[in-house]
């Protein structure tokens, strides 16, 4: 296992009011993303635990692009990864944002 933590400045606060959301399942080539609205509006944090060792640069690039594209301000993402491909990671991150921006509790 390898752990990473990334802090980013986001352009703006993520939409919606929901406090938490979760998407995905930890399995070979798959991951779960828990997202929580717990940070100041312009901050974004990603905590990653991954089974695939040696992909730090890829994670850095994927998460930087993700933050630039979705501006998930105020959100903390906690990821358990079973060795997913970067495209799956990007997709789950986007799904997590969509979910927490939905109306609901």
């Amino acid at each position: 296992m390898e752990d990473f933590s990334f802090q980013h400045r986001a352009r703006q606060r993520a939409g919606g009011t929901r406090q938490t959301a979760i998407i995905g399942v930890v399995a070979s080539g798959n991951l779960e993303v828990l997202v929580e609205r717990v940070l100041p509006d312009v901050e974004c944090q990603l905590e990653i635990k991954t089974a695939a060792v040696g992909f730090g640069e890829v994670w850095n690039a994927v998460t930087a692009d993700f933050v630039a594209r979705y501006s998930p301000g105020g959100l903390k993402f906690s990821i358990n990864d079973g060795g997913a491909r970067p495209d799956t990671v990007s997709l789950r991150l986007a799904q997590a944002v969509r979910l927490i921006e939905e109306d609901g509790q």
Partner: protein
Amino acid sequence: MLMSTNAETRGTTTTWRRGREARDARIEAGSRLARGKVVEARDATRLMEAVVRPGDRVCLEGDNQKQADLLSSALLAVDPAKVNGLHMVQSGVVLPEHLDLFDRGVAKRLDYAYSGPQSARIARMLFGGKIELGAVHTYLELFARYFIDLTPHVALIAAVSADREGNLYTGPNTEDTPTVVEATAFKDGVVIAQVNEIVDRVPRVDIPADRVHFIVEAEKPFFVEPLFTRDPAAITEGQILTAMLAIKGIYAPYGVQRLNHGIGFSTAAIELLLPTYGEKLGLKGKIASHFALNPHPALIPAIESGWVQQIHSFGSEVGMDEYIRARSDIYFTGPDGSLRSNRAFCQTAGLYACDMFIGSTLQIDLQGNSSTVTTSRIAGFGGAPNMGADARGRRHPSEPWLKAGGEADPQGSALLRRGRKLVVQIGETFGDKNVPLFVEKLDAITLAEKLNLELAPIMIYGDDVTHIVTEEGVANLLLCRDAVEREQAIRGVAGYTEVGRGRDRNMVERLRQRDVIRRPEDLGINPLDADRSMLAARSIKDLVHWSGGLYAPPSKFRNW
């Protein structure tokens, strides 16, 4: 003056029938074991020893799918003192016995096209010098050489049934048989067929009796592997996204109606999206109507929804027999109702009569060359290069072909301009175990260096590739004007691979302005919409339902 090597001077007379006489002698030797043409299975090895001579070129049918397994075991069991040094000329090296022949010294030299399941062992044996390699071919190439310089002395083939005269019914998996028999029987070779059963009357005559010299009845049916069944349950969201990009970004703008699909999950996803996503885009009747394609079960929903008009097949697929029989408007069938496949014709159709090939690969380099070779595996080429190559001899126009040609050469005179076949590589930027699809140097080149090959085993050359589709978008290489643009276009869809991260962001953005690269958002596709609920079938069972119960999947694909 050119001396014919076939003519031999005996005393004062010249004989031109040396081959015929040798063939007659072989048949004479084999006939001692036969009743008419029928040889008992237990005598099959003795038949080999009687008919096959040291150094012969032998085609042991070895197709992509069906295997003359009884005859390969029989040949393997010969006394190497009697039969040795054979030169095997067969399209598929599939069974372990095919390589055991070389270990035993029965065979020495090999010319082939495809070695899927034996790809690792064949690599080891080449390294170890156990096999003297002629060349690795594409199917059409090897078939062509059967008629020029690799004509078999003996062909060992497989058929479903035979009558006592030797008329053969090859069934849905006709595959290579007519080609092999044509080359062998009409050039003084001996044809030996293993059949599942001997019947009074064959359902249809695929091979006429006068081309068949011996028949062996096998105890169990010849082996056929279901190679073209893709379980929809295994299709991922990423593959669905790439499939959506391909449909909207390539099929639609070029209006591709005549095409061939590879066997990967991405193309299976395309097949399963036609009746749903394709329908929503209003593309029915405008794309994907005529195929050179094996009977892919994944295409059933599109067929049932009226998308497909006609399919010609290289081989068949396990479990599809009844469905094909009931859909003769779509497939090529014989008077008996069952599929008639033919690899040589279908490969030709894929080369000349299709406007697009789309398939996946293991590695793509910065020039767009692609290969399925890794340093420890030599899988051969099969048919993909025939599909995935521009046919320079093509002369008939079609809209996609002309449009692609125009994009490649916008300045040229329309009347003189060649069209271009669309050759599309589709895949995810990372494959199994996070292995990148894009690389700086192909493993194929490393392998060629290690083996001292004259040519690296390139599946599809970069100059034939017109588009690359990944989850990052569609790269249209036809619109690239130089090698630098081409490289950046490839890097631009290579995602987070090292190749992708090494892109020139500014140049990639400029290429995007020119539609050389089209991102999902440029095509109006939201990656979040790529959902398995879009698939017309999400399981093998769904495919059975679509087929009205006619598709009978093999046991390994069932979950009921």
